[in-house]
């Protein structure tokens, strides 16, 4: 174990000081990512054995669920009720709601199925804001260049270019739905600077940007013609005889039974994988973020990309332990907040891209300059009192969510610094899509965090809220258009692709013991809940 300063002692040595220049020793070595970022932990990846990405590197824990056996087979569907719709949206976060609203407005019959309640998502927890180049000194080109640079160049350039050009209209659309933004005295949008960007471009509503967005979109969907199926996680996609996507199998947690929804187009918007706790990291993610959409799409033959790269947000709470992983917005650093090690020294330019800042924090901890959180885990200070000294009143006026978090921790962030450590935050890769969100499987669209290619190997703050609305709207319109030409008649719609999956698994000598999608993290003990026995193959086999 490496040395670290006990929490109490570190706290007694801490003094809020307004002026703390960055010491020259904070110069980064070339290899900081390679040496300290969790994406480079040896043996974290395996090569996939089956499916469209066979041979590609993929995180071990993700590979396990991508190559898992299905939860159901044909027999489960014999007595299942059937419904039909034009467009089925799976996922009730920001991307799903934007897609459902636009598909419905384009004239399609739309059903939205969500694992828990409408709005239960990572969107609601996003704090910092949404990027759009609206200031006169900023341009979409600068937005694009920053996105490309943060991504280490490895993104789909067409997708990124389209997204930054969409951005101002995304903001207009959100205001039209009734979303508020922080405005200056003349009614203009106020922006913050994201780490790794060349201009202030992050528009926001306090540190509640995602909450404000989600409650407005949820209200808009409730008031639309979209049919909502809540507490209905999708356990499988349906396919027709050509292998095109033709709907999904939902498992109702209300009625404890499966149901078939046949659809002319399906939009997956199920988000990411934080609750898989990759590399044993805590996470800032919602309870339901266990990669369901990736599993469903992969089984149907959709090509994925960048499955070996994830974002660890630099400022996850490290103390107190029961709140470990909780997000603290990058907005604190945008506003000028510093990071300090146990010697009360700054060790990095706080507005470097997220992957670099996270790696620097991990370096401080590994090299004995961290602070003990109490159980062997380690962190560094987020110097909120210093920020408050430089800009009195800013924490109360701009960061109410942080103050609320402080109350839960018994810490006043204006008086005492917060102990932080990187927290698993975002899935950089995902399903490969085109500009309309279409995957490589006809009839299947994927938008938001489940999709890949937009952010390369590292996402900028504020580009995710932009991504979900930009691609969500486009996929909604495209899916509605596709559904107009299509018909569900005289096609055999089933889960035929599962036979191929099982054949592949057996030929590759892979275990059939893992079931996917997971639906919930293991500590929720869903598999042990007798209420849901009817929704489990294993229970049937055992009985």
């Amino acid at each position, binding site marked *: 174990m490496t040395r670290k300063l006990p929490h109490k002692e570190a706290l007694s040595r801490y003094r809020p000081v307004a002026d703390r220049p960055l010491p020259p020793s904070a110069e980064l070595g070339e290899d900081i990512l390679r040496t300290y970022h969790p994406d480079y932990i040896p043996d974290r990846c395996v090569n996939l054995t089956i499916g469209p990405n066979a041979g590609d590197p993929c995180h071990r824990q993700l590979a396990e669920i991508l190559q898992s056996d299905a939860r159901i087979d044909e027999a489960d569907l014999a007595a299942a009720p059937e419904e039909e719709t034009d467009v089925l949206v799976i996922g009730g976060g920001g991307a799903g709601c934007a897609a459902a609203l636009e598909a419905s407005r384009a004239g399609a019959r739309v059903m939205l199925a969500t694992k*828990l*309640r409408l*709005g*239960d998502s990572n969107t*609601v*927890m996003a704090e910092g804001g949404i990027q759009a*180049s*609206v*200031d*006169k000194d900023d*341009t*979409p*080109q600068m937005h*694009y260049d920053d996105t490309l640079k943060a991504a280490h160049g490895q993104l789909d350039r*067409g997708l990124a*270019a389209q997204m*930054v*050009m969409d951005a101002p*209209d995304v*903001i*207009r659309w959100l*205001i*039209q*739905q*009734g979303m*508020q*933004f922080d405005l200056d005295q003349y*009614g*203009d*949008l106020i922006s913050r600077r994201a780490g790794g960007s060349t201009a202030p471009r992050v528009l926001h509503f306090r540190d*509640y940007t995602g*909450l404000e967005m989600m*409650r*407005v979109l*949820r*209200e808009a969907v*409730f*008031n*639309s013609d979209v049919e909502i199926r809540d*507490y209905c996680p999708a356990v499988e996609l349906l396919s027709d005889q050509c292998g095109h996507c033709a709907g999904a199998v939902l498992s109702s*947690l209300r009625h404890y039974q499966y149901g078939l929804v046949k659809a002319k187009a399906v939009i997956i918007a199920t988000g990411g994988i934080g609750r898989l706790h990759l590399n044993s990291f805590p996470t800032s993610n*919602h*309870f339901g973020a266990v990669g369901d959409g990736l599993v469903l799409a992969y089984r149907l033959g959709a090509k994925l990309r960048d499955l070996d790269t994830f974002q660890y947000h630099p400022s996850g709470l490290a103390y*107190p*332990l*029961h709140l*470990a992983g*909780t*997000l603290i917005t990058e907005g604190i650093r945008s506003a000028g907040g510093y990071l300090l090690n146990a010697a009360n020294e700054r060790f990095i330019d706080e507005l470097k891209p997220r992957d670099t800042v996270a790696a620097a924090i991990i370096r401080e901890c590994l090299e004995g300059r961290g602070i003990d959180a109490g*159980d062997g885990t380690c962190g560094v200070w987020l110097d909120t009192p210093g920020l408050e000294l430089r800009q009195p009143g800013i924490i109360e006026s701009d960061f109410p*969510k942080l103050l609320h978090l402080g109350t*839960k921790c018994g810490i006043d962030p204006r008086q005492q610094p917060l102990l932080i450590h990187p927290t698993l935050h975002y899935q950089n890769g995902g399903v490969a899509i085109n500009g309309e969100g279409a995957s490589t499987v006809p009839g299947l669209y994927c938008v938001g965090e489940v999709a890949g290619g937009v952010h390369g190997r590292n996402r900028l703050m504020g580009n995710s809220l932009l991504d979900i609305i930009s691609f969500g709207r486009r996929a909604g319109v495209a899916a509605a258009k596709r559904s107009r030409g299509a018909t569900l008649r005289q096609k055999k719609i089933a889960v035929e692709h599962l036979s191929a999956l099982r054949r592949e698994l057996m030929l590759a000598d892979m275990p059939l013991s893992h079931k996917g999608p997971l639906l*919930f993290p293991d*500590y*929720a*003990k*869903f598999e*042990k*809940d007798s209420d*849901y026995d009817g929704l489990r193959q294993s229970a049937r086999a055992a009985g």
Partner: protein
Amino acid sequence: MNEYSDSLVTLRINGKDISAPESLSVIQALWYAGYPRVKGVGCLQGVCGSCRVLVRRAGSKQVATELACELLIDEGMDVHFLNYPIAPHHKYQMDDIHSSWEVQAKFHEIFTEAVHCRHCNGCNATCPKNIDVQKGVELAVKGRFSEAGELFVECVMCNLCQTACPESIAPNHVAMFSRRVTAHFHARPSNLINRLEKLRKGGLQVSE
């Protein structure tokens, strides 16, 4: 998950007696004790409003409403989860309100019950975020939507005020209406409009 060094407390959750380390939230305590819990769990950060519970503390007769992800367990506490929040029963389309001059009249057509508020304070008592809900309804009834909406910055739409209201006012949806019309009709940022105009004229391109 972490190792816990703190002492155990005993409490009752949904009729089950459990003991768990004192630093845990209600949801974490259930998982710690081996009981499954899926419904009524959401963001685990106090912003989604999913994990609404009724709670009575030891030695008290008072029942309060809280969010289970934010509520730390306590010796002798009795907790019950309230699943399935109610769907809203008012329907409106933003596009049906043609100008900002009509907003007040439309509000009273949509939220017909709002004017009947009997100031019973039920909404304020249930709000886990300590919002002055009743004041918000009063302001909205007077047509002061921007002011009403401002009170609800921290609202997570847990629907507890809707459950508590004897007049079926749905105060949280009144608040959302107030906030939405404020943005929809009154937010016209000139920096955004300038940028949209420039884009419309094809003045800004991205070269990949």
